[in-house]
């Protein structure tokens, strides 16, 4: 299988001058194309920090992170922004969208940043909104969408520029069970149909059980890394 993320010995230390906090402590992480992986662990265990590091939003204090063979720790800040634009999709916990743009424009926006042609954009939007099941909400503003719908648009945006992988930090944390399930269904579908690699952090056991691989962090270290059988069909949750 093709390797997308290869992180060796990465550490992130906060509060270096006083009592150092190892938010991430000497972590190795290897992610392959097509994974559907959950990052779990108690609050403060370093999930967000780890996602920020492999997403190139933050730089490690030690170690090396390679994405598709590129050492992102060696990139300068402007190069890193460009790298993120072209290689990594992000879904945040909430407020992912630009409030003054419609759902469609929010997704088109990142493709425009990438310099995609109009025809290409329109095609992609059509496909993506079909996949997230929001063809009828193209012209809705974020404020006119439910939290779950907003997260689905955020997923569409994350995939819009065809990244190497998508990072989602607690994407369902603010959603009710039904919306969370729907979002996970969509992510699972995209994982299957587009071969898209997903890494998501969560506290929610119902989300954890959707993953095929579960990495558990405690105090900045990986304490377990297990493969599990996905009990759901790809098209919907438990009947």
């Amino acid at each position, binding site marked *: 299988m093709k390797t997308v993320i290869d992180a060796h010995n990465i550490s992130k230390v906060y509060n270096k001058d006083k009592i150092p906090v190892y938010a991430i402590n000497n972590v190795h992480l290897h992610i392959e194309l097509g994974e559907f992986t959950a990052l779990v662990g108690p609050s403060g265990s370093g999930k967000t920090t780890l996602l*920020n590091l492999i*997403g190139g*939003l*933050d730089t490690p204090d030690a170690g090396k992170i390679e994405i598709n063979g590129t050492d992102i720790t060696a990139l300068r800040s*402007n190069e890193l*922004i*460009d790298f*993120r*634009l*072209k290689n*990594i999709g*992000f879904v*945040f916990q909430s*407020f*992912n969208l*630009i*409030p*003054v*743009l419609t759902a469609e424009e929010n997704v*088109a*926006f*990142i493709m*425009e*940043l*990438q310099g995609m042609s109009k025809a290409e954009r329109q095609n992609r939007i059509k496909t993506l909104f079909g996949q997230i099941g929001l063809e009828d909400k193209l012209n809705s503003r974020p404020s006119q969408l439910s939290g779950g719908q907003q997260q689905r648009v955020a997923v569409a*945006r*994350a995939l819009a*520029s065809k990244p190497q992988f998508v990072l989602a930090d607690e994407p369902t944390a603010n959603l009710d069970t039904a919306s969370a399930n729907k979002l996970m269904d969509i992510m699972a579908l995209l994982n299957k149909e587009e071969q898209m690699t997903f890494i998501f952090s969560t506290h929610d056991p119902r989300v954890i059980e959707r993953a095929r691989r579960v990495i558990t962090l405690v105090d900045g270290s990986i304490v377990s890394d297990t493969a599990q059988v996905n009990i759901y069909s790809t098209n919907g949750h438990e009947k």
Partner: protein
Amino acid sequence: MFILKLAWKNLWRNRVRSAITMAAIFFAVLLSVLTSSLKNGIFDNLINNLVGLYSGYIQIHRKGYWDDQLLDNALQTSSSAEKKILSNRNVLHLSARLESFALASTGEITKGCKIIGINPFEENNITLLASKLIQGKYLKEKDNGILVAEGFLKRVRLHLNDTLILLGQGYHGSTAAGKYPIKGIVRFGLADLNNNVIYMPLLLAQDMYGAQNMATSYALSLSNAKELDITANELRRSLSETYEVMTWEEMMPDIKQHISSDTQSMLVVQTILYLLISFGIFGTLLMMMAERKYELGMLVAIGMKKARLAWLLLLESVMTVFLGCIAGIAASIPVVYYFNRYPIRITGDMAKAYEQFGFEAIFPTSLGLSNFISQGVIVLLIGLALSLYPVYTVWKLNPVEAMKK
């Protein structure tokens, strides 16, 4: 292009805030266009009255005349020099004058007066002398009558068509004397002129003073008064060393001083005005940036280059400023026009002071385009300078920090 669209949409995301910012800019521009057009209008009026209608914008004398204003320092009129002067692209009209003093006597009363020999037609081109006529007839080139200022006529208690005896010292010590019928009466706002001046045709004055073909000055009018110094310098270069070229500013430095000190106090007022709105705009910018911190962090996180984000914010500020500015200018146009048509009229001591200077105490606004454009440009520059703050913030932005709740 999509950045422009996004900037436009962001402009309206907080309507109240945008409206307040634009209103502040609107009023600042409106006030400042008004003050500046009023200031320029007043000065244009002053210069027109004093300079345009009296001294001329530029005068040419024989070298040394201005410091020692004697007939003996008069210049020899020369058609080649006149041609040279008139060939300057900015010189509109030229009028030769012969000015000196005389005693005017009725037999019973004798008063000192100022005699100005003029070319009636050419003088009227510059100072609109004929329009000052209140009784009788304007002069002709070969007349042997005179025009007397109303105030002076009262002092010597004479009337139209009476005869006045003039006595003076002519060129190189000769005696100048003559009897002249009063052909017309002129009235000036400037008391100094109105109480002392007698006009006669240049030929007649040259004859009386024994100063054939002589003039004490050439008064010039210009097609573009703004190029005063440039034109004076051009004339200095083209004329020989025996002439002196003086602008009205050099001849009447106190007026020039008055204008520049007034301009400075006006500038202080405008600066305060602009400082006030700058603080206002800056306040709203601070608020806006605090409110959008998370969103800006998110945009950088998903891969929007900081330069682009800065450009977006810059566009937003410029648009806000531009809209307020355009609205302010648009609103000021009718107001400025109104006060140009119906000038503000002042009363009281101020009015008296102005009347002593010799013109009506009215404050018309100037319609000059530069009043509108310069204020617009200033506000736009302020907007640009202030938008350096969001640009700086974006430059320093760390997406992880910005997105922390």
